[in-house]
């Protein structure tokens, strides 16, 4: 009797030794090069995005200077064009607000909307006293503030008052400075980022994936679509759409969505496949990519200006929201579970 139970115990203890010998809370060990994925992210997705952003903000600042020096239809057209380019570049960078970008609150400083028109006007009237570093000034700077000045303000006002043009220069200069700091820091910390390929919550993969999903959920799904469509309020909020003055909300949305899709297919898809992750008999990576296609289809017929869309046919916006929401579930629930990553942010419930 004793011998049998001893043997049983022994069997048990042997079998229990065969558990995964990787990190305690990592996914099943599998043949997948996490470091290579990190390197791909760092070198082929993040660095180029920051490069483009810096280059476009540079051009933007130069054309703002040209416009300030010679305000006419020609220089204004160039400025507006460069603004559009920069805004779309920003969309490509927005999913990767890590490290220095987080510290400097790059996303908040570059793209908090709706912009505060009253504060902008106040700033323009007292140019010498403003400090754009103050958190209270977040809502009067960045791309949305520029958008108001370039597309929301009457052209004659812009043309006639050189204080507006000075303020534009302050805004473009500041954005350029911030993006330069972020890019420089990124290049300096790139190796540390790639080598930090462990499973802990502070390691690169965990943080990057969390930031990616946070961006998808809060800024893409809610910020660009849900909030204007009134999902979180009693009625649609047309004044909360991105790009409402320039009238290209859809282009900004698409740029951001494409960057999200590209990032997913820059390694996470392969990782999920290597782990053999399936849902209902189909590869999760395929379902996620199919969902990206569904999202694009839902966005296709929308008005270029979401501010107009929510007023003329909000149902179409809500349908887009639903498709985005399905993807949030795939990413935040299915994918994170498969990768053994914990969500590191809480949906703020306000005060």
């Amino acid at each position: 009797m004793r011998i049998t139970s001893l043997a049983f115990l022994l069997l048990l203890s042997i079998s229990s030794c065969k558990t995964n010998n990787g990190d305690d809370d990592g996914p099943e060990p599998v043949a997948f090069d996490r470091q290579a994925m990190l390197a791909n992210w760092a070198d082929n997705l993040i660095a180029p995005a920051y490069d483009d952003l810096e280059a476009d903000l540079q051009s933007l600042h130069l054309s703002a200077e040209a416009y300030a020096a010679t305000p006419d239809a020609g220089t204004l057209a160039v400025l507006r064009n460069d603004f559009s380019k920069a805004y779309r570049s920003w969309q490509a960078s927005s999913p990767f607000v890590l490290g220095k970008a987080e510290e400097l609150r790059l996303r908040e400083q570059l793209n908090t909307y709706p912009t505060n028109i009253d504060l902008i006007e106040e700033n323009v009237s007292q140019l010498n006293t403003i400090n754009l570093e103050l958190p209270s000034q977040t809502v009067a700077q960045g791309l949305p503030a520029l958008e108001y000045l370039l597309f929301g303000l009457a052209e004659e006002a812009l043309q006639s008052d050189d204080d507006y043009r000075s303020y534009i220069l302050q805004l473009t200069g500041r954005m350029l400075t911030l993006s330069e700091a972020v890019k420089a820091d990124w290049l300096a910390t790139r190796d540390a980022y790639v080598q930090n390929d462990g499973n802990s919550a502070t390691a690169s993969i965990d943080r990057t994936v969390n930031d990616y999903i946070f961006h998808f959920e809060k800024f893409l799904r809610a910020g660009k679509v849900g909030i204007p469509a009134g999902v979180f309020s009693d009625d649609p909020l047309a004044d909360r759409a991105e790009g409402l003055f320039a009238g290209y909300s859809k282009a900004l949305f698409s740029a951001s969505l494409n960057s999200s899709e590209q990032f997913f297919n820059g390694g996470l898809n392969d990782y999920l496949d290597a782990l053999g992750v399936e849902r209902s008999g189909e590869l999760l990576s395929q379902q996620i990519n199919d969902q990206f296609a569904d999202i694009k289809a839902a966005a296709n017929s929308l008005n270029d200006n979401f501010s107009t869309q929510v007023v003329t046919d909000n149902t179409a916006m809500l349908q887009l929201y639903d498709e985005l929401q399905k993807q949030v579930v795939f990413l935040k629930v299915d994918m994170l579970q498969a990768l053994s990553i914990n969500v590191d942010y809480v949906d703020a419930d306000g005060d």
Partner: protein
Amino acid sequence: MKLFIYAFPAMFLMIAATGCDDDDAPTPSFVVPDTYVFERDGASTVSFSGQSERLGMAQELSAALLDFSKREDELFNMYRNPEGVDPFSDASLNESTKSISSKVAASRDLFFTNATAAAAIKADFDGWISAQVSEVFPNENELAARGQAGQVADGSDVRYVNEWGLELNQAFSKALIGGLMYDQAVNNYLGTAILDEGTNRTENDMANTVNGESYTNMEHKWDEAFGYVFGLSANPAQPLDDLGEADNFLNKYLGRVENDPDFTGIAANIESDFRLGRAAIVVGEYGERDARANRIKEILTDVLVIRSIYYLKQAEAQLRATPLMPQAAFHDLSEGYGFVYSLRFIRLTIDGQEIDYTTFSDNSLATLRNADDNGFWGLEADELATLAEDIASVFFINLEAAAN
């Protein structure tokens, strides 16, 4: 005649009351309305206007603490509502004779024989108002830093902190939840010292109403407790309809805790406890009344404790984030600070002994104040973790459940 009518249900309840489980409040056998509607001779007997007014004043004052154009005397006028002054934008509040200040640290159970403690607490509230004006207002357009009051960023929001990182307006507002709403409801109006004061029982048994009103004194006292939780509800007869949105005080945080799946159900419980307790008063069923009062007190106490833990754990998570941006935690820390201050209004009876948590609250606040190392600027995540654990264990709340 009226006594006779009430004798029947009382008898039913006596029968039903035997063999009841302490924890399980049984469905009583007297008449309980489906909504918080009570009438006598066709007139409503429910009244808590004083509470609604104070809640309204507190809402305005809370907002005014962030109005940099306000002077100190204007803020104190909203707090004290002296004669001959109209400090509020809501005309009905200006007509009111009530004030917030007169009911801060003023409960029968805690402060009737402790004017000293009450004075110290009132001085804290006064201090927060003054400091907001003298320390934070002048630094409206400064960037906060160690030793420097001013702005900190919280996502795209701005927070205004004092020189060691505390948002004084948050400390004030969250401490007010303990010192006014909770203290008055739990330690005053739901206590037997007030409910059974003087001849309240006899008057209530005989359904003798207060002069000129349709309610008995006891009915009114109970409603006043109700008023501190649901006083600004759009439809107080069905107060759960706008739970969490009626005000920024007990109602709001009761709603928040209800939304935590670990605690869902407390809202329905507290609503039915208020309603059943009130119905028990109407039929003179005082045992049931007190059983319900105790359950309400437990629930409201839990709200204070759970939110204290919640904000500390949220702040702890921020302090463990990479990159470390301590200012990101200041808003959670400030709210936590106010809730931890509120813990001093709790009294639990353990093994027959009533425990006073003032010292516990003060010590916890000292940890948060972190005077040796620039207050919130120098706080460490582990210190917050330990503090949250202590609060959870002292008040018998599950740490994991409260943390998120």
